[in-house]
């Protein structure tokens, strides 16, 4: 197992490359999900405001 992680002494390079790849991809996905959520929240708020405005008149 530790052999596997050592990657024949090139652990830094192999895991550095794979690590950055994993990191960026995961960040991208998380960021996308967060964005979807904020957009929905904002739209919901806008619509509630509009509905409220419509009721006032």
């Amino acid at each position, binding site marked *: 197992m530790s052999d596997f992680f050592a990657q024949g002494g090139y652990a830094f390079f192999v895991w550095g*490359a794979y690590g950055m790849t994993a990191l960026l991809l995961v960040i991208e996905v998380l960021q996308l999900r967060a964005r979807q959520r904020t957009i929905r929240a904002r739209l919901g708020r806008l619509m509630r405001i509009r509905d409220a405005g419509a009721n006032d008149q």
Partner: protein
Amino acid sequence: MALNWFKFASPASFYPIAGRLVPAFWIITLVLLGLGLYWGFFETADRLGGSNAQKEYYRIIFIHVPAAWMSMWLYVVMVGWAAIGLVFNTRLSFMMANAVAPTGAIFTFLALWTGAFWGRPSWGTYWDWDPRLTSELVLFFLYIGYIALHSAIDDVRRADRAAALLAIVGLIMVPVIFWSINCPDPNQCAALHQRSDLTQIDGNILFAMLAMTFGFWTYSFATSFMRLRGIILQRESENAWVRDLLDTGDKA
């Protein structure tokens, strides 16, 4: 036929379609990446010994090469959508181009990063001004230019068109730029040799590489569709169908 296309080309009808496709793409992505990684790490170990020995860092190839391929392919895709948008004035194609760009930039960066992490153990340097590396760097700048221009413009319609025009000009220039980098001295260009040849690569390695490439590809589909859905919602928020969507509490 034509009618059908127009139907799909409207954001309203594409939104739910994309919503259904995203999970499918995620599943395929996970399968392909899992397969590629397993094959790359455990089924190609025989290459480590023997006369033509590879060191362990060759394993970077399974992300380096797919990322480099995706970076170029996604640029072409992005420009394609941008051009369609400019010519036919369809909103959805601009949104597609927008949705693809960040993913493309990420893969370009990854190609550079993984290449650097490969170059250090094999060439002894993180960076060299090799034509291939330089071109990839320029590609990265082109992506960033597109994204920067788009986000610098407030009016989305202007942003769409301006960025699309830039992408097209960029695409026309890309071969010239790459060629000039590859061949800084026109007196000796004929001698430029082919660098790599897929048929010479070991079958197992090739298999893992292809699996990873397709995995990245479906990943790009998944993320750009997710991003596309966000963009659609934002831009179409005035339309009745978005309101209905939110009212019915769609979770897709």
